[in-house]
Structures are given as C-alpha cells and as structure tokens.
C-alpha cells in the first residue's frame, strides 16, 4: 500500500497566475484608510424629531482577499465539471442518489455509509425556480436570469442551476438538458440548463397560469434592461440572444 506523502504535492496547477495577480491587492493595503468624508447626520435612539445633529467622520477601508479552499472528497464532482462530466454519489445501503454528491450517506439508518461515485445523465427537470431581476454584485451582468433548482435524472436531490431561457417560459416540471459553458473554472456556474424543445407550458403553472403575472414580469424586465444598459452598456437584444441556445 502506498504511504501517504508527508507533504501534499500539487499535481495540476491552474492557480499560479491568479496568485500573482492577487498579491497586488495585499500590497494595496487592505484595512488601511483610503479616504474619508465628514457627514452631518442624526444621532440618538429615539424618533427623528427627538434626535440631534452630529458630525461623523466616515472612512473608506478596502478588504479584498484570495482564499484557497479544498473541495474535499467531492473534488471529483468539480473536476468532472471541468472535464464535462456530471457525477453524483449513491449509497450502497439505501440506494439514495445524491447530486450534489455526499461522500457519506446522511440517512441515519445507514450510519454514515461511504457512498459510491456514479456518472449522471445531462438531463433533469425544474423542481422550482425564481426569475431574478436583481442579484449580488458578481451576478449583475447576467440579469435577468432564471435561478432554478434542478433535479438531475436519476438523482433524489436538487441542485441550483441557471436555466438559460426567456424567463417567461420556465415552469415547474420543465425538462431540461444540462450544458457545459465554454470557459469552466470548477464551480456550479460551469453548467447551465436549457429547456428540452417542444414542451407546452402547463395551464396550472403558477407563473403563466395568471396573465397578469407574465405582464408584470415583462414590465419589470424592462427596468432591468434599463439598469444593464446604464451600468454595463448591455442592450436588451444582447440579453435576448443568450436565450437562443
């Protein structure tokens, strides 16, 4: 049996350039004050009319860091994404199929059984979804998008995946195909889903079942397009192109 090496060995390195880039940020002086404002504002615990005005000094202090983080024993899943494979795990005792994978079964009856890796098909269905018209900073340029929880065929759990389609088309139970993005970095954004063609939106779909829902959604998507144009110069037609996969 091979002995465990005392020092972990890097067997593939796709990180060195980014480490160099981020060294800059450390040198830029995180946590030190880069500028300030003097602000006259209300002070006090009570109602505004009971507060008095005080002068406050407001400092600007950056904080940017580069973490290195092991995906642990589910590394195989994320390396799989880079290599265009979708993996899950299966408990040999209760047969539960996990995607996201767990290397240990969480069924109390199985007493933390080790699971086995299996390759899953690039198909699934939408378990539930939201249409995002605003998001965290890192995702703003992707707006508007469908954040869905997709149950991969053969898996018992669901996983968040963006469905690339016109937001007014998505519904619960929609069959989707999983696609890999051209540029893959080893996180869940390496994949996205597109609806299988030829499906009819069910009459009882909670979104499209009420006409005003769709009208209101379209109205507010226009607001999002205006924001995208102003902030990033992204046009509505560019967004709509994304959905023609």
């Amino acid at each position, binding site marked *: 049996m091979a002995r465990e090496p005392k020092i972990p060995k890097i067997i593939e390195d796709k990180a060195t350039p980014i480490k160099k880039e981020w060294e800059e940020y450390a040198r830029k002086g995180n946590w030190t004050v880069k500028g300030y404002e003097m*602000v006259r*504002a*209300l*002070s*006090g*615990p*009570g*109602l*505004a009319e009971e507060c008095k005005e*005080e002068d*406050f000094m407001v400092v600007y*202090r950056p904080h940017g860091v580069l973490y290195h*983080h092991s*995906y642990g024993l589910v590394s195989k899943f994320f390396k799989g994404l880079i290599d265009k494979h979708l993996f899950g795990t299966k408990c040999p005792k*209760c047969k*539960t199929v*996990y995607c*996201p994978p767990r290397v240990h079964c*969480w*069924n*109390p009856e199985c007493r933390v059984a080790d699971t086995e890796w299996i390759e899953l098909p690039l198909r699934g269905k939408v*378990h*539930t*979804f*939201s*249409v*995002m*018209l*605003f*998001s*965290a*900073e*890192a*995702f*703003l340029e992707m707006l508007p*998008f469908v*954040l*869905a*929880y997709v*149950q991969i065929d053969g898996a*018992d*759990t*669901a*996983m*968040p*995946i963006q469905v690339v389609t016109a937001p007014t088309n998505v519904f*619960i*139970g929609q069959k989707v195909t999983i696609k890999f993005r051209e540029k893959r970095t080893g*996180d*869940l*954004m390496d994949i996205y889903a597109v609806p299988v063609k030829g499906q009819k939106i069910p009459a*009882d779909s*909670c*979104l499209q079942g*009420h006409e*005003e*829902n769709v009208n*209101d*959604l379209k109205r*507010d998507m226009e607001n999002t397009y205006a924001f995208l144009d102003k902030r990033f110069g992204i046009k509505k037609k560019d967004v709509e192109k994304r959905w023609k996969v």
Partner: protein
Amino acid sequence: MSDRRVAILGGGLYRPGRVRYDNAEEGVAMAYKSMLQDFPNLDPREIEFVQSSYFSDHLNQQLCMAWIVQDYIGQHRKGGYRVEAGGSTALDNIINAYYLIKSGQYDLILVLGWEWMSEVDTATTNEFIASASDTDWDFTVGGFYNGYYAALETRHMQLYGETIEDLGRLAVRNRNNAVHNPYSQWRAEHGTGYVTLDDYYKDRIIAWPYRRWNCALISEGACCLLMGSEKVAKRLSNDPMWIAGVGLGTDSMRPGDRLVDWAYHGVYKADEKLYPANVEKPKTPYPEMANFGFAREAARKAYAQAGISDPLKELDVAELFAPYDGVELCLYEDLMFCPRGEGKTLIRQGLMERGGELPCQLSGGLTSFTHPVGATSLLQTLFLHWQLGGLIKKKLGDATLQVKKPKKAITTGHGGTGCQGGVIIYSKD
C-alpha cells in the same frame, strides 16, 4: 426540567434606519440607557451575565464585536458571549439566556442585539448575507437569499395555489401596520398614509414571485432586553412577560437536499399526505422545498411546554420572523395555525390582520418595521412585551396597534433557508 420561571422584564431600543451614523456600540449603549429609565430600581452592577447577538462579521470588518459592546457599556468582568445563527441569531440569543436562567446558573441577564448593515453597498450586503448559504453549492449560482426564498415560495405556490394577491395582502397589511409604529423604517421613509393592493402591484419585482415590498429591509439598529428569574422579576418590573415555552429545530443546509430529507422522512405523515396529485412528489414530501420543517419541530416542543393545543385560538398576537411574505404564509402551516396548504385561506379570511383572530406583524415585521438581523427578534419581543403589558399607547403614542388584553404571544426565529430556528411562547401570567 427545572420549575424556575423566566421573564422578559423590559427593554430598550435604538431606532433602526437604513443608515445610521452612531456606531454599533453607541447604538447599543443608547438602547441600554433608554431601558435603564424603565428600571429605576436596577443597579447595573446587579446584572450577572451579558449575552450578545449580531449576525455578520463581514459587514463591519470586525470579529468579536460583542467584546467591544460589552465593555463600552461597562458590563465587562462578568461572563458573557455572543450567539450567532444567521437570521435566528437574535431569537437564539433570547432562548440561550432563558436556558441559563432556567437552569439556575443566573437570575438576571442583559441581552443585547444589533446589526449595522450599510457599510457596504446593497449588492455586497446581499452577497455577505448570502455567504450564510452553502458557498460551494448554493451561493455560486445567483448568490442571493431573495432568489433562494423566491424559489421556495414558487414551489409552495405551485403545490397549494396561493397567488401574488395573497402575498400582496401581507405586504399591504405590514405597511398599514407600520404607519402606526413611529420606530418603523417604512414610516420614516414613506410617512403615515395607507397603501393598497394597487400600489403593491406597481412595486418592482426583484425575484419572482417577490416584489421589493415582499422582502426584508436592510437596517442599522439595536435593542436590549432584561431577562430575569421570578426571584428578581417582581422587584424590578411591573409588567414581566413570562416565557411559557421554547423550541428549536433545524433542517438541511441546502434546500435542494430536502427532496430526500431522511431526518424528516415519515415523521409528519399527515402533511406528507396533503400533497396535490398533479405535481410529482419527491421522496420526502414534507417539508421538501415548500415548507419549514424546523418550525414544526420548534413549535411542537414549545406548544407542549406551554400547554397549547389550538394555537390559532389560544394565541392572541404574533410577531413572526418572516423575511419574505411567503415565509409567513408557510409558517401558518408549519406552526399549525392551519393544515398544510391552507395558509392562503387564513390570509383571505383576514384572520391575521389587525382585529383578526391572530394578528401578525402588528409592528410591521421585517419588511416594514425593520431587520437589523442581530436585533430583530429582540425588537419583536420588546414589541410583544409592550402588547402584553398594554404599553403600546405609552411607547408608540398611538393605541391603534394595541391588541385588547392579550394573554399569550408567539415569536419565531429563522435562519438560512429555514436551516435553523426556534419558537418562543410568551405569557402575561
């Protein structure tokens, strides 16, 4: 279990706002100072232990802020620590202090809570909050609680047929309560006029099915509570509010895992059966991604301790931790105010409105009053203390929100996507 009784003796608040410039320790100090005015017989040195709650270290570039706050108000030397559990941070803080007093370790505890959430821009605040989700699996795909919660609500909506109008009714009700609460952010920003469903429909969707009005506020504010045993309660307070029951619960970190939730599998059979035939059933039908199992667990325990069998009838006022309006609707079911799927009926019958069977969110709740996370449940508890003590007119200068002679109240806490939380039942006697 120890038969010692534990009470909320009173408290104080620092009015929350979207941005406040007094800093956190000063805000807490001012809340504490206003609390002391209600306790002329209290020598601050009598306080035996200090518990603190704030949610995020990221928001203020500060770990261990509780140490700053505890010494700032001169309450150091004695024991104390911080409790943290996402959105349930503040409720768990109260429950933890309850356990410490109940066990006989202490008789008098000061409970502090605060959050300063506007030191980074709104999108980054949301990003920091979302880092309470699983950052390997959930955060990477849209990273935003509004989105996760919206997806949970979509599922419930598909299963049980509530509509945008039902969510709108809650949003409108919260605002029309908040205009009578001068400490509410809604009133500070929008004045005292009532709003209607038509106004709601004009509001912008941010994560369908949620509009801005359906979502929790971002806030800076603080609150403190004084908690004590029966031994000190009568001397210090004219209107102690007793803790009649508490319960805690948890569910999976990732909501997507709840489709095969072995810990819940087969536990709530009646709820598993209340599943519509036209939607494909996951292996574990309750709570799956539609309801909040942690709340059922917590409620069961709290009701058993408080001797409650028909919560809708027996409870008189509720301040629920509902960061999104759909959460409130689902909680009606998980807290057993109604069977699964009937949350919408309670809304349509107006039972949870002012003057209804069980008025909820009279303060305006997290969407219209305020949501400085580490203080939120303290503020809701303080509001219930004013309700049970008949103090609403005195504290708010307006009696509109006062429930007539309430005896029993409920509050909940709620972290992550329903990953952890609790229930407290308060009683006047």
